[in-house]
């Protein structure tokens, strides 16, 4: 199935292996694929280069996110079967190839090649890479799964923080007429092509570092001082195993699908429109008291809140439990949305505070979901189940911008909107969060009829080594 140097049995950790090597291995992958959220750096350059509309160029990002969800869903079982090294290696090859084909498209003025390269091929790399370390981390950190997955998935948020300034500097290096600090300056298509080639090579090296650092724990391994019986005592944490095929037949899977969909849609509602939104909220006539540069700073601040939320909230879930933390994400998120719509227009500080809280819950929702799945379905095929659940992300990626743009289109023209124009979109998000809150309340332990027989799950690691 995979070359021997990638085989799962070659990655089993020996005695004395330090499990704290696994989070940086996972981060090496997630920091690279997180670049997908930094595409705005060269978006205008591509619009000019291809003489295309913003929508046509925006499709590149949309294809990549849809392919992320689809490939995670389709390849999840393969990732679980073949282990993290094969998955990270494959993800690195797809992500690298995506940049190379994308560069070819830019160099030969063929936008469809960028769709195929960065969108389709790169998107497959995104999906496989996103889920590749999750089940391994959960197995290495059975005592703190939220902390472990939070650290890795934090990298997906952090990837854009690195790629955004780095891309600006590289574009300025490749195009002497481009100034990354001047919002009116546009880089040449040639410089974006060189940027794609550079990023592709750098990301390949980084992801290979992750692939060849990662290990899986030996059968029966457990951390020093960890007593699995303490986990068993918690009502919402199972010691049984549910297969991916069975998981999608349970109401719990679909309730969590709704929870993730609502949480992500609400977050995207702000992320999608962040820079113009803060300017519109503090608009007086044709002018806004928030400059374009400050609006860019607001977007950066939200990225940090998104990233920090992934680590902080997911780690907190290890202490207070998965269901209560989602009640916080959805319940307090709902309250923050109401306050953003009503009190937000009165103060920039309050507006930024409420938006940052919402984005931290958005990130937390992403990072905590693998641990929630582990609690409900066990570790047996948690990677594959997580992959299937990520279709909620793809759906939210379409629904979130659609909801916001539909309301704003009906309210007026960009550049003339005010805080009142956002009310409809924001209160729709409040309704969505309420639906998610109820869905989370309905989550109960999975019925025993879906559990795998003990002998089958015990045989799985042996089969996967064949």
């Amino acid at each position, binding site marked *: 199935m995979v070359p021997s140097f990638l085989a799962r049995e070659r990655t089993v950790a020996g005695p004395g292996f330090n499990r704290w090597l696994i989070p*940086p*291995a996972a*981060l090496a992958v997630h920091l690279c694929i997180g670049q997908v959220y930094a595409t705005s750096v060269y978006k205008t350059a591509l619009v000019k280069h291809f003489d295309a509309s913003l929508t046509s160029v925006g499709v590149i990002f949309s294809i990549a996110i849809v392919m992320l969800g689809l490939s995670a869903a389709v390849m999840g079982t393969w990732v679980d079967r073949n282990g993290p090294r094969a998955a990270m290696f494959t993800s690195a090859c797809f992500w690298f190839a995506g940049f190379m084909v994308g560069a070819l498209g830019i160099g030969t003025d063929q936008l469809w090649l960028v769709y195929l390269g960065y969108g389709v091929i790169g998107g497959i790399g995104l999906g496989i890479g996103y889920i590749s370390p999750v089940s391994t981390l959960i197995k290495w950190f059975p005592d703190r799964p939220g902390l472990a997955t939070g650290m890795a998935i934090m990298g997906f948020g952090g990837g854009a923080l*690195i790629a*955004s300034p780095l891309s600006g500097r590289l574009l300025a290096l490749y195009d002497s007429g481009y100034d990354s600090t001047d919002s009116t300056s546009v880089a040449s298509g040639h410089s974006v092509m060189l940027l794609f080639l550079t990023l592709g090579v750098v990301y390949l090296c980084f992801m290979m570092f992750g692939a060849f*650092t990662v290990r899986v724990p030996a059968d029966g391994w457990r951390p020093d001082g960890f007593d699995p019986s303490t986990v068993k005592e918690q009502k919402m944490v199972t010691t049984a195993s549910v297969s991916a095929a069975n998981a999608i037949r349970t109401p719990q899977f679909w309730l969590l699908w709704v929870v993730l969909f609502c949480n992500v849609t609400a977050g995207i509602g702000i992320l999608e429109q962040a820079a113009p939104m803060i300017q519109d909220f503090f608009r007086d006539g044709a002018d806004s008291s928030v400059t374009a540069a400050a609006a860019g*700073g607001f977007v950066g*601040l939200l990225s940090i809140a998104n990233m920090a939320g992934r680590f902080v909230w997911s780690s907190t879930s290890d202490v207070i439990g998965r269901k209560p933390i989602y009640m916080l994400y959805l319940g307090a998120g709902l309250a923050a949305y109401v306050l953003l719509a009503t009190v937000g227009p009165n103060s*920039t500080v309050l507006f930024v505070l409420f938006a940052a809280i919402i984005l931290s819950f958005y990130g937390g929702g992403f990072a905590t979901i693998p641990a929630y799945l582990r609690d409900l379905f066990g570790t047996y095929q948690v990677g594959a189940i997580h992959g299937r659940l990520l279709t909620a992300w793809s759906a939210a990626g379409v629904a979130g911008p659609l909801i916001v743009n539909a309301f704003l289109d009906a309210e007026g023209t960009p550049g003339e909107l005010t805080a009142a124009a956002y009310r409809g979109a924001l209160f729709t998000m409040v309704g969505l969060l309420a639906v998610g809150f109820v869905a989370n309340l309905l989550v109960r332990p999975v019925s025993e009829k879906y559990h795998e027989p003990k002998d089958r799950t015990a045989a799985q690691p042996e089969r996967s080594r064949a």
Partner: protein
Amino acid sequence: MSARVAVAWAVVGIPLVYGIVETLNKASSLFTK
């Protein structure tokens, strides 16, 4: 093994710190006139 762990964290930590510092610098313009 400890040295290997330190190097691995440095490989991912240094770029991450770079990204956070750059972003905070940019975000500071939000609260300065």
